[in-house]
């Protein structure tokens, strides 16, 4: 791998790491979610410093053209991250549904309670007035 390409990959990794750290500082991403992406940047750094690793792994598992292994690994990792996010979205959807139903029912019951309380207060006021 040419030195310029290695520098390019390294710079790319640095930009990506800084972006994730910035998002973390701004609280735009949770620590738990950022771990996956930081793991990704670690892989980019390792490959930019030791590009031969890919060749060695490819050779070991019988991949004839090493760059395809890189693509395969990239796709598999992204697939897992997407699945992880789908799970999280499903959980959040379920929680939003629960909350919405809870708010709807309790709003209704609170309104009903206030109306009943007002009606009782008015009735008491009427009785007191008549008593006097």
């Amino acid at each position: 791998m040419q030195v310029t390409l290695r520098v390019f990959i390294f710079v790319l990794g640095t930009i990506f790491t800084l972006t994730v750290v910035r998002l973390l500082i701004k609280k735009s991403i949770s620590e738990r979610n950022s771990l996956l992406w930081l793991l990704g940047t670690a892989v980019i750094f390792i490959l930019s410093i030791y590009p031969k690793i890919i060749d060695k792994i490819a050779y070991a598992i019988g991949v004839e053209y090493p760059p395809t292994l890189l693509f395969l690994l990239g796709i598999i990792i992204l697939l897992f991250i997407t699945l992880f996010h789908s799970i999280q979205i499903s959980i959040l959807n379920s929680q939003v549904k629960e909350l919405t139903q809870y708010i709807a029912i309790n709003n209704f019951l609170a309104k009903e309670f206030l109306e009943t309380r007002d009606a009782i207060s008015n009735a008491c006021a009427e009785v007191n007035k008549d008593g006097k």
Partner: protein
Amino acid sequence: LSKGLIIIPAYNEENNIGRVIREIKSKNVDVDIVVIDDGSTDRTREMVQNEKVDVISHVHNLGYGAALQTGFRYSVKRGYKFVVQFDGDGQHDPDDILPMVEELERADSDIVIGSRFLGKGSFKMGILKQIVVNFMKLIIKISTGTKITDPTSGFKGLSKRTYNYYSLKENFPHDYPDADILIQMLRLKYRVREIPVNIRYRTQGKSMHSGLKPIVYLLKILLSIMVVLLRERLIKEG
């Protein structure tokens, strides 16, 4: 407080809901009514309030099943003996409420389905929907041994035991509860019965099963049925 509650889920039904409520009230059946306004962006809520009927509003749209579940959860708090699901689009006939209530009061059924195919009136549906419904009937028959004539009917009556079960978090889908839920309940030995009902055609608005939706719907239901059967097997093994 009456013994039963009619739950009407409604989403943007300002043109139908007032008439539906007036028609139900005109039948003088001893049941309470609650409308679940599923985040409507029109005047649905206002129309219900004009009719002096209770309305519970979602802050945003959740889906037909979730709206029903809100009704079940409200019923749990109130302790109704039974509930009746009734659509807010005017397709269900209020004349069928009394037979449904009588069936539920007999207390020998957990789920009473208002079937459009048991001889009362004539109900026509598109070929695509017919295929979907027949396919569901077949799957129900194979997986439970029970013949259900109308698995997609939205007009149902539920005993306290049933709506208590449905009110629990993951026991009811947020979109369209149909054959999957029916299979689940039949396999859990809940008693299901059908009574003949009449169906009317929509005068306003658009059906939720129009166009190509039945195909997507069928795929979703097939997946849900598979999940129900697999889950049951896993629970047994676990």
